[in-house]
């Protein structure tokens, strides 16, 4: 579901400021909102961050020299806001870390080279549950990995633009995407194994 990455510069240059900003909002509201929602897994937070992105953009609009890179600029503002929020969330839940670490260590041995279940179409997991699982996997990834993964795979942003958004070289961006994908597989396997174990235990109890 790649976002529309084209930037309507022709219209931007000839319109009044108000019309330009309305156009900017109309063009980027959906991609920015879907990005923040996919990263934050919360509609309320995504609403708040999206609003903040555009308000900040309007405040800085007159001082912006690079009107050619609007997409990267808006994604960068959104990324910074999301990263701050995700880090704050992680700080809040630090007390749970010990428990989670223990659980993850106990299931660490399930992550192996057998990728057949992962590569199968849905692994037998219902669609809604799978989406929930994907959200959980993203939440457990390091924030930097989740950012590039959502930008690349869900938003369809090319790695060169991702490099611009996160402030690294294109090669570093591609490397991070590669690592993020590998980390995603690890976490996905771990969490789906945990889920299967729980279902198995429930079944045994019955």
């Amino acid at each position, binding site marked *: 579901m790649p976002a529309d990455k084209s930037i309507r510069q022709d219209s931007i240059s000839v319109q009044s400021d108000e019309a330009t900003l309305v156009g900017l909002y109309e063009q980027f509201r959906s991609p920015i909102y879907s990005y923040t929602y996919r990263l934050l897994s919360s509609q309320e937070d995504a609403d*708040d961050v999206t609003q903040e992105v555009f308000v900040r953009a309007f405040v800085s609009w007159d001082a912006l020299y690079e009107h050619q890179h609007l997409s*990267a600029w808006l994604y960068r503002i959104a990324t*910074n806001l999301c990263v701050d929020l995700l880090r704050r969330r992680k*700080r809040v839940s630090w007390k749970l870390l010990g428990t989670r670490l223990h659980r993850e260590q106990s299931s660490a041995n399930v992550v192996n080279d057998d990728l057949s279940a992962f590569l199968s179409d849905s692994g037998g997991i219902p669609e809604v549950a799978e989406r929930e699982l994907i959200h959980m996997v993203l939440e457990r990834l*390091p924030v930097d990995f989740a950012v590039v993964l959502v930008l*690349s795979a869900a938003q369809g942003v090319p790695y060169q633009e991702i490099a611009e958004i996160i402030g690294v070289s*294109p090669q570093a961006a591609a490397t991070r995407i590669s690592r993020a*994908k590998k980390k*995603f597989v690890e976490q996905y396997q771990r969490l789906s194994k945990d889920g299967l174990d729980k279902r198995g235990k429930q079944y045994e109890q019955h």
Partner: protein
Amino acid sequence: MSSTDHHHLPPLPSYVTPSAKVCAVVRLYLAVEDDLSAAQLQTVGAHVQLCPDCAREQQVFRRVSLLVATLAAVHLSERVDRAVMTAIAAREQQNDVHAPRHSPAALRPRRFRWVISLGSVAALFALALSASLFWLSGGFQGHQSTTLELPANLSWNSYVLYHTQTTMGSQGEYYQVTSYQDMADHQTYLQIATPGKLNVVIVENTQKSLGLDMMHHVAQWNVQDWDSNDPSLFDLDSLRHDLHTGYVVYQGKTSFEGHEVYRIRYPNGYILLLDMHYMPVNILVEHNDTSQGKPIYNVLRWLHPSQVSSSLWNMTIPDSFTMGNLPSKP
């Protein structure tokens, strides 16, 4: 994306026979397969046909992309649409003297304490308003130098001073400075940002300072170079002393943004404005274009500490940051 420039990735080997080196390069390309040109896809494809490990990697990467792409996109709420449209309209009303001084509270994200954002929108027209209202109110009525007695029980210590400032760097670039100053514990949180170019956060207490380059995830301790440009006129004890000794001159009451204020002039040309409760509302700097001076801060507020997240003063270096040097101050 075939038109994009791929020269930043290591060049694809012309030969496709699997080897550790070739596979490493090909796998980097596989991670961004959707962004490759037709020619690159052909070369990568030829290698993948000969290399089962890379073929497996390609399957895994594709599956990850597919899974992440299935994440649903939900609809943006109308509340956000309304708030953004109001912000655009407010921006356009900068020159309307009847526009409200502050953004309506309804515009603010409900649960965020990011007072910066919409306060900054208000600041955009506050700058214009400050000049307009000054003229409408008859401007500064002339220096009425008398004495100003600050109440003995006056204290600024139970507040956090918040202000934003747009200023110009040595290269002529505008940047935004946002500052929170805990008056009781003498802690400061400072953010210096130029959209897309710079985003540095400085957290400082009486012992040390920590600088964080939020764009490149670099941290540095004791960053004296990045100290605030704040003229430090928010020290009540010094103000009492300076008024007493005559180092600063009380110039009488005047009007600022429609409110009566006390005006105190410093020898360096700064003019501190206090409201009728003796709380600073802004600092003016003398300017050729205006007889009363230009306000330094876009927004200046005195916040109750409960309005500010305690995480602002946190001096823990985030996990993903590496130690290094902050970029040069603009």
